[in-house]
């Protein structure tokens, strides 16, 4: 019992530290799509330097949470608050959220025929720079940056010059998301099931990319079904999402436990609670 009191001091210190590095703060977030309530009150705190994994069974709301944070139009926020770097995230347009430094690696990256990957990235980068009152990157500098990042995340130069995701394999699309992530250097990156459809080599390349990009200035939310990815990208925290709520949080050991026991033991208490 005594031990419970000591961490209180720790908590206080941690709380102070949090305030300083506060990046994303989600409070009681609720959202629906086509009259179906998908998020039923999410609370999550993400600080700079942290990696949070969000796990959970199909249909629990993982991808919906990513979509709501990125500002997808089809979702309607019905309650709660989200602050990102001190700003009310929900008030911002999708492009301004991106310009503020929020990046979503899509579960299903979109193909845009005829638009070269490079031209697209240059437009994106310069839009973000303009938002910060920075001049557009000169062609030479942009090229240098492209080469550097291609190398960093082992992205094939040939793909960089092709039309955006057009005719890319599933794995190539996911790798392209990581390449874009490297180029745009966001504060917070949400990886929405980036591991789905990846073979083991691609998974390693993608994870290596993320590990090279992580720093004490940025943060990641990694959404995944499987513990496998978390062998490569080691999270600081693991949250289990079920039925629109975070029902359990813990450290990376939680992921192992889920791998072993499945999700059923998580579901039970919620189901009984809601009855």
């Amino acid at each position, binding site marked *: 019992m005594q031990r419970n009191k000591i961490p209180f001091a720790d908590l206080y210190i941690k709380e102070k530290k949090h305030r300083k590095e506060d990046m994303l703060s989600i409070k009681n977030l609720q959202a629906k799509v086509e009259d179906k309530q998908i998020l039923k009150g999410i609370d999550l705190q993400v600080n700079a330097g942290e990696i949070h994994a969000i796990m959970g069974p199909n249909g629990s709301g993982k991808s919906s949470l990513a979509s709501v944070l990125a500002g997808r139009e089809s979702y309607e926020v019905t309650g709660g608050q989200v602050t990102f770097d001190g700003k009310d995230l929900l008030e911002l*347009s999708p492009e301004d959220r*991106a310009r503020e430094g929020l990046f979503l690696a899509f579960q299903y990256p979109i193909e845009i025929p*005829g638009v070269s990957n490079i031209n697209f990235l240059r*437009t994106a980068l310069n*839009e973000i720079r303009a938002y910060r009152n920075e001049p557009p990157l000169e062609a030479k500098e942009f090229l240098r940056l492209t080469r550097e990042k291609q190398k960093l995340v082992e992205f094939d130069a040939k793909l960089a010059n092709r039309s*955006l995701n057009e005719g890319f394999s599933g794995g190539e699309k996911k790798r392209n998301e990581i390449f874009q992530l490297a180029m*745009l250097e966001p504060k917070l990156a949400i990886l929405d099931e980036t591991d789905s459809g990846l073979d083991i080599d691609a998974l390693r390349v993608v994870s290596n990319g993320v590990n090279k990009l992580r720093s004490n200035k940025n943060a990641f939310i990694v959404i995944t079904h499987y513990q496998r990815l978390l062998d490569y990208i080691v999270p600081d925290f693991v949250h289990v999402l079920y039925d629109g709520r975070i029902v359990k949080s813990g450290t990376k050991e939680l992921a192992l436990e889920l791998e072993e026991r499945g999700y059923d033991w998580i579901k039970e208490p919620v189901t009984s609670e809601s009855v």
Partner: protein
Amino acid sequence: MDNKSADILEEYSDKEYEFGFVTDIEMEVAPKGLSEETVHYISAKKEEPQWLLEWRLKGYHSFLKQPEPAWQNFELPKVDFQDISYYAAPKSKAKYKSLDEVDPELISTFEKLGIPLSEQKLLAGVAVDAVFDSVSVATTYKETLKEQGIIFCSISEAVKEHPELVQKYLGSVVPHSDNIYAALNAAAFSDGSFVYIPKGVRCPMELSTYFRINTENTGQFERTLIIADEGSYVSYLEGCTAPKRDENQLHAAVVELIALENAEIKYSTVQNWYPGDKDGNGGIYNFVTKRGICKGAHSKISWTQVETGSAITWKYPSVILQGDYSSGEFYSVAVTKNKQIADTGTKMFHIGKQTKSRIISKGISAGEGQNSYRGLVHVGSKAEQARNFTQCDSLLIGDRCGAHTFPYIESKNKTATIEHEATTSKIGEDQIFYLNQRGIDTEKAVALIVNGYAKEVLNQLPMEFAVEAQKLLSISLEGSVG
């Protein structure tokens, strides 16, 4: 699609047409209406030889006999041919010896349009012929071209200085009786450009004509004639604009291209006539007949067009593939928004053996715009091993616009290979959201998507114009979403 995205994709605003100004200049305008007297008047004004007057009169009589077409899938507005003035020219001098003699107001008009006429200021490697209402006001780089034997001048001047060439080829591809608008043009054409590239000469610069309608109640009926002699090459570009006016103005031009053995003609158009306002008031009726003939073996004609203006665009730049092994190409991007209508495509007539044609058409419809591709691939009985490839794609923005495809294929030779591909797509909210999520706003996202979609065609344009055309596409669609 939920309502908010639907709004983004559909909401329409009237983007100002930036070339809508009027030049205040003294004009000499023929009385309204078309009659034998008008034809005589125009011919006399231009001091034309008897043969040309007679040819014009044939055109006039053919015009009287022809009905207006009735096969189109849009309502053809009644054009009152007697309410149009068929000749308008800046007063001052009829012919300018040098740029110094041109009214400064005219020069500044073209400067405003981004077409500098003084040669020092010109884009390197582009010679320009500027046509203001009915007359050519300036042709640049004429002397430089002359050194290689290239003739680039107004057609009026060509009639005087090179009558043998004009008489031989004028009307040889588009006869005076071809269709009602071509007949009207034959009777009333005022000016236009003339190009002759001698044997074996590769024209060292882009040739360009810039057309401007300025005067109220006039039509513009220019006629362009390009002859590429054996083994020669030329790349030619036309651009056009008009002031904003509430009434519709008629533009009935004729372009004839002749490619002799081993010659190649590349003809590019960036058409930005005034499209009318968002309710469909005003705008140009762009009823144009463009046709080329690959007369000699191994010759090639390539049409590229970017059509963003005009209330109604109605044209089918075509190629008659007469020479064996000759090839024809047609690359088109047509944008319609608000209440614009575009009915455009091509006709490829395969006559010679081993002839090839390639058709790439990209339609973009927004607002209540209607876009039709209409094309004919004809393979004659002697066209052994003829090949055609056609691809026509339609892109829809919003759900009140329309895209239509009317491909006609006639083959009289069983060794021919004809391929046709067609797609229709919508700019998806997923695509826009993806680009938004990378920091790109919706307006820029649409511009990127549209330019990507049209890339195959834009790539065919000469470099300087490809950049212009990309901007034009973006500007044309500005306000068409969100």
